Structure formats: C-alpha cells, structure tokens
C-alpha cells in the first residue's frame, strides 16, 4: 500500500474522531448555553453556530487538549460577539430580553433554596461573574481551562469566582425571605 494512502487514512480517522468528540460534547454545550442565556431558542442558535464553526475548523483542534474547553472558547467568543451586536442594536425588541425571561418564572412559595432560586439569583450577577461560575459549576471546566477560554490569567478567574459567589450567596439569602419584605 502506498505510504500517502496510509497517511490519508490516519488523517481521516483522526478528523472523524475529532468530529465524534465534538458531537459528544453537544449536550454539554446546550446545557451551558441555556444556563447562560436562559432562553432555549437563543441557546440552541448559539450552540448551532458554535458546532458549525468547530466542525469547519477541526484541523485547528490540537490533539491531546481538551475538546470541551476548545468548544467553550468558540462558544464564548460567539456569545461575546452577540452581546456586542445586541448592545449596538439596542432598539431591537424581537428577541426576548433577559428581563422577560427573568420574570417569566414566578417566585417559589418555598423558602428552601432550589435550582430555580439559583437560576434567578444568577441573573443578578455581572455577566463576567456569571460566565465564570457557569463554566466551572455547570461546564465542569478546571480553573486553568476557564482561564484559557476567557483569555485571562488564572488569578482573574479566581477573583471573579470569589466575587461572583459572594454576590450569589447574598442574593440567594435575600430570596430566601421574600415574605418578610412583602409585609406592609
């Protein structure tokens, strides 16, 4: 068998492996995107964009590195770009705003902390704090991977986490006593 044929085969198998690895991460991308955007159509649009781009440039994925972190980086860049575009076209009312989504869910009667409380509390965070909390807590990236995805030093990831978690805690503590505030 000619040598170039062997190489061709190896290359195709490697790219097919990468492709399968991308596809295997799609559910995690959807979960992260939904946590971030809190709107399933917007989240899936973002994931679709991300996956299309990833599959189009599979050659750029370095073997031995983490596929999820690579995909999260692509998704993050698309997300940042979207935010920028949305700010530029501030008059666009067709897409649901974060406020629409935030108020769609009625507050729980229970004072126990639930996932829904967490979801609502995340809304109160600054975007860069929320992102890093979700990358680590939902996306299960390591600090180092999150730093690479965001293109910031690991110390920045940690300080964003520390501030974000503190804020999340106080917001959730506030949510846990809604009846007291409503008494008039």
């Amino acid at each position: 068998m000619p040598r170039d044929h062997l190489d061709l085969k190896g290359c195709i198998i490697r790219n097919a492996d990468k492709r399968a690895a991308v596809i295997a991460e799609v559910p995690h991308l959807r979960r992260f995107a939904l946590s971030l955007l809190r709107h399933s159509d917007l989240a899936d649009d973002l994931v679709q964009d991300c996956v299309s781009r990833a599959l189009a440039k599979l050659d750029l994925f370095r073997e031995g590195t983490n596929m999820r972190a690579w995909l999260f980086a692509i998704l993050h860049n698309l997300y940042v770009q979207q935010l920028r575009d949305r700010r530029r076209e501030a008059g666009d009312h067709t897409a649901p705003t974060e406020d629409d989504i935030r108020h769609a869910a009625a507050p729980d009667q229970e004072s126990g902390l639930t996932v829904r409380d967490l979801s609502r509390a995340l809304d109160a965070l600054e975007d860069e704090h929320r992102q890093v909390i979700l990358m680590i807590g939902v996306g299960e990236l390591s600090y180092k991977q999150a730093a690479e995805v965001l293109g910031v030093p690991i110390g920045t990831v940690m300080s964003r986490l520390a501030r974000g978690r503190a804020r999340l805690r106080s917001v959730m503590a506030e949510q846990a006593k809604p009846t007291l505030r409503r008494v008039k």
Partner: protein
Amino acid sequence: MTTNGPIDDLDIVAYVDGELEPERIRELESWLSTHPEDAAKVHAYKLQNLLLGSLHEEMLSAPLPDAIGSAIEPPRPPLINRNGLRIAATLLLMLIGSLAGWGLNSLYGGNRAPEQKFVQKALKAHVVFISGGPGVSETAVGKDDKLTDVYAQHFEYPLKVPNLAGAGFRTTGRRLLTGDGGPSAQFMYKDAAGRMVTLYVQSGFDRSDMTFRLLAEDDMVAFYWTDGPLGYALTGSMERGDLLDLARMVYEKLPGRQTTTN
C-alpha cells in the same frame, strides 16, 4: 500554623471547587474550625455547586433540535462503489460519514434502528467468542466449496467466507444462526498474536442500505456495512487502522466485488 499567610476568599473558592493544593487544604480546614463565618461561606458555596450541578441537567439527555442535528450531519458521502472508483477510496469516503453518522445516531435517534440492532448483535457475538463461548467449527476447516453452498442456501444469496489468511488471521470457527432479523452467520478469526476478530453476517437488508460505519464500544471497534441483502459487521479489539485493513479485505472479497472470479 499557616505557612502561606491567612486564608482568604480565593482559598475558600478554590477549596470548594477542588482546586486547592493539598497542604493548603489542611491549613484551611483548621482555619475553618476557628472561623465560623468562613465555614458558613464554604457551606454556602458547596450548596451553590450542588445546585449548579443540577442546573439544566435535563439537557444532557434531551433530544437535539433539528437545526443542530443538521448542523452536525455530514454531507452525504457516495454510497456505492462506482466503476472506476477505487474501492479503498470509496471505503474512506464512506468512513467519514460513518463516524459522524454513528455519533449522530447515538444522540439523535436516527432512523437506522435495524442497523443499530444488527451491530449490537454483532458486538454480542464477538463478546461471546472472545470470552471463550461457542467458537468451535461446526464443519471441518478446508471444505469451503461445500460450505459456500450451505451459506447460499442459508441466506438465499451467494456468500463466500472471506479468507483473512493474507493478514495472518486464520478461521477458528463458524456458526450458522437463525433468529429475529433473519438468517445470520458468525465467522471467527484469530492471528498468531492471539487477536480475535468476528465477522457477523445477517440477511434481510435493502440494497439501498449500503453504508460503511464504525461503532466503538468499550474497547471494541466494529466496522459494519450492507451489501446487497446482507449486512456485515467486523468486530475486534484492536487499533482502528488495523481493523479497517481487515474490513477492506473482507469487503473486497464479497461476491458482488468479484464478478470475474468464483
């Protein structure tokens, strides 16, 4: 006794996320015993992680929407080995689609249930073989001509048992099987290094099913495809490239590929 200064918020966050160095963990844990406010913080952050862990967890098993499904679906490869196109090249082209198709299937349901069932049966057959189950030849080796008739009758289609001796694999067993999904047969091969390969053949497919796919499960790899009414699955626990070479040998020896001989 702390060696790296007092515990701060960054330590607490890293501790909760399992990113703190072991020696610092010990310092932090003894710090917490005397600093209830920080202990409460650790407790609250662990609760955050618990809740984050179940945030939109349902997405991990949710079916994909069509838009994403088509984004990950590869362009359809040519399915049939056309005249003038080299078999190997065709196999490779089909393989591109097959790997993605396999991933797509497992996530997206897909409409290839008969093929999925088939390859699962093939994997089971291989497991039975490698775990020392029935692998004894039912007919003495060396009577291939007679066997060809037997198989033709069994499948109502000509089947010549692929000979993999060229790759160092000798036939160690054959079984004719019947069951749901149609008549099937299992051929077992072994090489000098003890590597085992199972070829599983089953009839009842459409001509239009002709595809070439790969499934990797546990440490097994299976290449499978259909040719005429027969489905073939070659399963082994070996490097994909090696198994692909064998799959190519089998493929090239199929009745439809050898119209001038036999």
